[in-house]
């Protein structure tokens, strides 16, 4: 009975978003708010079911992992199965919980748009597919949901169908993730053939010795899975689709491309520890994955440094941060996995918050470029607070959650013998901080341009997700013990071992000790001290630069504030000039040459097959009859 209720809850958490998607697509007559509210309720229900399931499961963690199967095609061993361990629960909770917040945000963000039933249908469809992906019990079910999420992503990125740019971006995203899906399918075939009793089921694969197909098939499977993960989780060199995909509405970018879909690749990499134990956790594959992570970290952040478009900047940072996760997961140690997975959770929180802030700024000002913002902290205090907290988190500033997971990644890298990777990670963190210093200054500090004197804070349904996420960042940073218990369980379920010792006062790993509450207290006292000094000193009230004597000296000319304000592209001109050789590689073609080369190769290959399509109907009938003849002969012999 217990198991049945649990299975039912899990099935409902996947099914409810799909059912709600079907219903909402017919709600065209209802007002935008009602449609949004209904959609959000679907994800809320899904989250509720998952929380219920999680509480039941966590009550006896030794019972993990659990598996539920409903046979589908017994001859091939295909069944609709669910596999529940701490990893799936963690990720499914992230996916559904963030889905609720994103849909709540959409209620007001998308209020003025047309075609809303289609939007909410795709969002719920995506939410359901995402939860299904994480809860899937065998590789084939996972593959189906993997492709469904790509499809939903296509629908959502290209939501504004009339804009050619959006449709192009959607197609690019779909192409690249579908290519990854093709490799995933290839890997699945390889695993199927390599397994001794041929199976794709996680539970069955976990106990296998893979004596059937030999090392070649298993290596092929691992390589294919890594490529699939690279495509889906925007790692170098298949990361191009994410920056263009930011043309989507901000709630979409936050949900799909910050919190959920891009994490599917990391999940796949982690799942490989379950499915191919002993074959994936070897130094050679670890090195491959760690290297991919390191290169991606650097490529992502270096591109982000020179962006002026806020959402593109955040997209490149997403690429970089997932590099951290891939680094953590690729290390092959329990601590590494825990670090990577905790960073996954934290990234969903702070990056989701940042994308929603970007959406708030776009909603309020109508512009996507950081050059057009300035001094908005006074007018949009909630957004400014959320953005500041999230920026500090992503830069790895204590006492926020980003610091804890990054610290764990550095420790795990050093512990596993990849100290060079830790150095690269720290360097990337420094550049991330530089990038976000630019973001926070350009958007919220400094002087406000004329055009933006009247902007208002965003409505309540948009403020709630921002504050919830920002507070979660603070909470998980000061009290990391709570999320780390689930994360640690997930990690030790994949690679046996104790990731780190979590005490009530702090965290202890083999490399170091971090006492978050003490640190938070000290930092808070430091801030108080700074404020005290500030208020005790004689302050000059800030003067609005209207009089000549306060204006910038430009040879005696009278210049408006806009012409001389220090905006975002001024921040990165020193970076660009110092690192000119690196940026020239990208600007002079760089990766594009590889992509175009591959495209031309495929085009020529397809050209050979295109010759069959003569356009002459009688030729097609001839081929048809020929094929029938061949099949008839095959059947009779």
């Amino acid at each position, binding site marked *: 009975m217990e198991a049945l209720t649990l299975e039912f809850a899990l099935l409902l958490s996947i099914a409810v978003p799909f059912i709600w998607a079907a219903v909402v697509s017919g709600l065209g007559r209802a007002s935008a708010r009602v449609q949004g509210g209904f959609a959000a309720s679907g994800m809320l229900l899904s989250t509720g079911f998952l929380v219920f399931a999680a509480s039941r499961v966590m009550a006896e963690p030794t019972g993990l992992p659990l598996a539920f199967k409903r046979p589908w095609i017994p001859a091939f061993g295909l069944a609709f199965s669910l596999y529940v361990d701490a990893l799936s629960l963690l990720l499914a909770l992230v996916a559904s919980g963030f889905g609720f917040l994103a849909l709540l945000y959409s209620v007001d963000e998308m209020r003025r748009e047309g075609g809303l039933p289609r939007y909410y249908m795709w969002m719920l469809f995506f939410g359901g597919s995402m939860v299904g992906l994480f809860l899937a019990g065998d590789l084939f079910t996972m593959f189906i949901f993997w492709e469904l999420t790509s499809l939903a992503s296509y629908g959502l990125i290209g939501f504004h169908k009339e804009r050619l740019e959006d449709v192009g971006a959607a197609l690019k995203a779909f192409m690249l993730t579908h290519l990854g899906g093709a490799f995933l399918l290839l890997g699945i075939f390889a695993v199927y053939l390599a397994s001794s009793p041929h199976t794709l089921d996680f539970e069955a694969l976990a106990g296998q010795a893979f004596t059937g197909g030999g090392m070649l098939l298993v290596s092929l499977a691992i390589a294919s899975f890594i490529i699939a993960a690279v495509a889906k989780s925007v790692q170098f060199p298949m990361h191009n689709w994410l920056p263009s995909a930011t043309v989507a509405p901000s709630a979409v970018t936050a949900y799909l491309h910050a919190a959920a879909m891009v994490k599917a690749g990391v999940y796949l990499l982690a799942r490989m520890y379950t499915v191919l134990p002993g074959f994936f956790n070897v130094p050679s594959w670890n090195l491959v994955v760690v290297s991919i992570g390191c290169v991606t970290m650097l490529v992502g952040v270096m591109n982000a440094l020179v962006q002026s478009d806020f959402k593109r900047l955040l997209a490149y940072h997403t690429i970089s941060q997932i590099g951290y996760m891939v680094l953590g997961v690729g290390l092959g140690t329990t601590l590494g996995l825990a670090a990577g997975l905790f960073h996954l959770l934290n990234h969903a929180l702070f990056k989701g918050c940042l994308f929603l802030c970007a959406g708030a700024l776009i909603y309020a000002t109508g512009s996507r470029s950081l050059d057009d913002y300035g001094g908005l902290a006074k007018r949009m205090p909630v957004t400014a607070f959320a953005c500041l907290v999230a920026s500090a988190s992503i830069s790895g500033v204590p006492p926020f959650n980003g610091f804890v997971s990054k610290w764990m990644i550095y420790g795990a890298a050093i512990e596993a013998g990849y100290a060079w990777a830790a150095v690269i990670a720290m360097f990337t963190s420094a550049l991330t901080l530089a990038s976000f210093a630019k973001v926070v200054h350009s958007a919220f500090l400094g002087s406000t341009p004329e055009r933006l004197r009247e902007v208002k804070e965003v409505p309540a349904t948009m403020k709630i997700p921002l504050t919830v996420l920002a507070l979660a960042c603070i909470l998980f940073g000061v009290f990391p013990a709570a999320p780390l218990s689930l994360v640690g369980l997930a990690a030790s379920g994949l690679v046996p071992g104790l990731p780190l010792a979590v005490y009530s006062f702090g965290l202890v790993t083999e490399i170091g000790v971090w006492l978050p509450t003490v640190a938070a207290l000290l930092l808070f006292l430091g801030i108080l001290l700074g404020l005290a000094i500030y208020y005790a000193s004689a302050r000059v009230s800030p003067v609005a630069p209207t*009089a*000549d*004597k306060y*204006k910038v*000296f430009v*040879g*005696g*000319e*009278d210049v408006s504030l806009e012409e001389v304000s220090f905006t975002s592209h001024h921040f990165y001109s020193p970076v660009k000039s110092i690192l000119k050789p690196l940026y020239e590689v990208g600007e002079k073609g760089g990766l594009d040459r590889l992509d175009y080369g591959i495209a031309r190769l495929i085009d020529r290959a397809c050209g050979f097959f295109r010759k069959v399509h003569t356009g002459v109907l009688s030729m097609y009938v001839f081929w048809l009859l020929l094929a029938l003849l061949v099949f008839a002969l095959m059947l009779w012999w």
Partner: protein
Amino acid sequence: MSLFRLSRKKSPWVFHVSTGSCNNCDIEIIAALTPRFDVERFGIVLQGSPRHADILLVTGILNRQTLERAKRVYAQTPDPKLVVAVGTCACTGGIFRGSYNFAGPLDRVIPVDVYIAGCPPRPQAIIDGIVKALEKL
């Protein structure tokens, strides 16, 4: 005497404003800065922005184009400041007084502290004028 006031007297930084001069006074000012006359031994440094200046060295007749700009530069120089009119043109307008483009003389628009006459004044005269100005700082 406060440290700031002492620093200003012992090392006044100058900014040169040409309000439409024929360049002779400008050349003489630059000459004063060369090693031959060497005003840097007085701590006098030529700055690139009036925001960093204690003394404004103004040359030229203040023609219609530079009228507003000279006023702006004067406003953008922080207090305490001194204005030194270098050359006859800056003092009275010289031979250009009454011409179509004349919008001066300088002290009609900006308060002048020291007048250094000459066309152009010799660097020695410029140095003498600045030293006299320092007593006002």
